[in-house]
């Protein structure tokens, strides 16, 4: 008898684990599509200072992305390319392509709470974490992501609150190894684009430092359009800067 219960239990849990995997994969797809084009504006608020930037981003799969800054005018035309975790930057003013060395990759990106590494390593929530459903409330499923053994990630745990109606998260909380909260992402204003759902308002806040957050609003988004392969070459940095 007890054996049967055990079998059922194992079956049930594996089903649940399968479901968690599914949810995460769908969430990830929503952020990415086959390829995605976005225009977004980013606001960094820190100690009373405020700064707004706008940029266009093209990405394909997990390994290729191209970003171009369009506002403020002073920075317009600066482009970034990341290919296979390597990253380059082009600055029109000096007409140079600069390779960003590994040590700079984890620096804060343009004064935001996002690191270069965050931009480059988007893929890792599917590959590096083991998801587990810990709570359901209506359509909202709370999933805890624990890093797989030997996964090269710094977080101890990530908790995602995912609305399964749209497969978008409304809040991600990042914890350190001791289980203390380090930072969180809040997502709002989900928009349906073709077959995909995407939150158009993001906010990143560090748990320790008050008066400091980064906001992003996605102004335009297109999925699965034909993005020319030309964007993902080093020559694109200069060519598409204009």
């Amino acid at each position, binding site marked *: 008898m007890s054996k049967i219960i055990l079998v059922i239990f194992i079956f049930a849990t594996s089903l649940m684990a399968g479901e968690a995997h599914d949810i995460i994969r769908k969430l990830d797809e929503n952020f990415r599509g086959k390829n995605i084009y976005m225009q977004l504006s980013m606001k960094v608020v820190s100690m009373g200072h405020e*700064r707004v930037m706008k940029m266009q981003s093209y990405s394909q799969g997990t390994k290729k992305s191209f970003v171009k800054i369009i506002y403020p005018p002073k*920075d317009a035309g600066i482009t970034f390319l990341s290919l296979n975790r390597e990253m380059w930057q082009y600055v029109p*003013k*000096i007409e*140079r392509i600069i390779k960003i*060395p590994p040590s700079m990759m984890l620096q804060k990106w343009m004064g935001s709470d996002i690191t270069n590494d965050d931009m480059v390593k988007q893929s890792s929530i599917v590959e590096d974490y083991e998801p587990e459903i810990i709570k359901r409330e209506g359509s909202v499923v709370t999933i805890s992501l624990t890093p797989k053994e030997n996964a090269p990630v710094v977080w101890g745990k990530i908790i995602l609150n995912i609305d399964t109606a749209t497969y978008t998260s409304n809040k991600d909380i990042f914890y350190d190894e001791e289980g203390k909260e380090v930072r969180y992402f809040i997502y709002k204003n989900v928009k349906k684009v073709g077959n995909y759902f995407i939150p158009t308002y993001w906010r990143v806040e560090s748990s320790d430092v008050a008066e400091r957050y980064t906001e992003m609003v996605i102004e335009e988004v297109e999925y699965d359009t034909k993005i020319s392969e030309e964007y993902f070459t080093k020559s694109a940095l200069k060519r598409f800067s204009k």
Partner: protein
Amino acid sequence: MFKLALKNTLFYKGRSITTAILTFVSTMLFILFISMQDGSHNSMLENSLKIYTGAIEIYAKGYRDIGGNDYLIEDAKAITDKLSKIDAIEAYSARYETYGLLSNKEYSAASMVAGVEPSKERVLSSLESALREGKFLDEDSKNCIYMGAELASKLKLRIGGEVAFVGGASEGSFAADIFRVCGTFKTGSFEFDSSASFLARSYFDELMYAKNKASYITIKLKNLSDADAVNSQIVKILDDEKLESLTWKTLMKSMVEAMEVDNIFGYISLSLFLVVIFFVIMIYGFINISSRIKEFGVLRSIGLSKRNIFLLLFYEIFILSTLALIVVTPLSAYICYYYSINPIVIEGIADMYKDYGIVSDEIPFDFNPFTIVWNIVVIYILNFISILYPYIYINSFKPIEAIRHV
């Protein structure tokens, strides 16, 4: 009693001369040793203060711990205006420091890039004298970058070469430019030479939107030892909770500790010399007294108390010590004074070790009357202690015994 003591010292010439000479030597050794130790520490400190760190530096609170554009001094002029009223300050300058990426073709390195006021740095720091090749900056040297020699070689740059800079401007936007290498420097500190580079503020401020902003304000004092007093004066004048003013004692904590450790070792060695000399003075005192047992017996039996005897011995050592000290104090004070102005130069040390952080081959002494006074007090005390054993020894004899003593 004093007269008797005086006569005795004249009578026992051997003992008197040895004691006086030993006191002389030990005092000289003591004073010069301490003076040299303090002097070399001061010069060590001054040298490293000269390289880049100021005697006092003013920061916005948070800059030192967290850093970044949020913790810049927003109105540097308001502060420097106040500083100009303080007499004890020799010079000051507002520096703007940032970390950015320098890159030359496939070579790139993260570097501290600082905007400085070249004419003031000539007074404040030894950046100019650390010049290896090319030339130092001046007020309108435009996009000239003055770069650590190690950094330049890492980036494969030569004088006249161009290097791309990408970083964040003070309000958070991107800053990028091409700099031209005008000079390289070598201070001896590998870390500094492999990561620091400088531009004239006049140019750099435009690029970084940093006009009138500062990472910190560095201050040079007329007299380094005034640091604490001037610092509290600065704190009072600034009267701003968002700012902090720190002296070199905080800025270079590990160096201060290292000097304390060095002092401890110095004192250990010195105490060895003093102990040995103390013993010798005591031995001579003892020999002298043991040959005078008979005499002391007589003195006791004609009615001198133990206290009188002690006084007699005390006066004797007092006369001898004082005699030696009168000669030695001005002499060693003069030597200290002389070498504090004209430091001993050991030729070649600087050349030999320039690559490893020693910039100067001068060993200056420190001339400080207060130090000399306490040195002398220590010698007096040691000399007085040295008569205790002989005194106890002499008292162990009864007067009658003493008279018969052979």
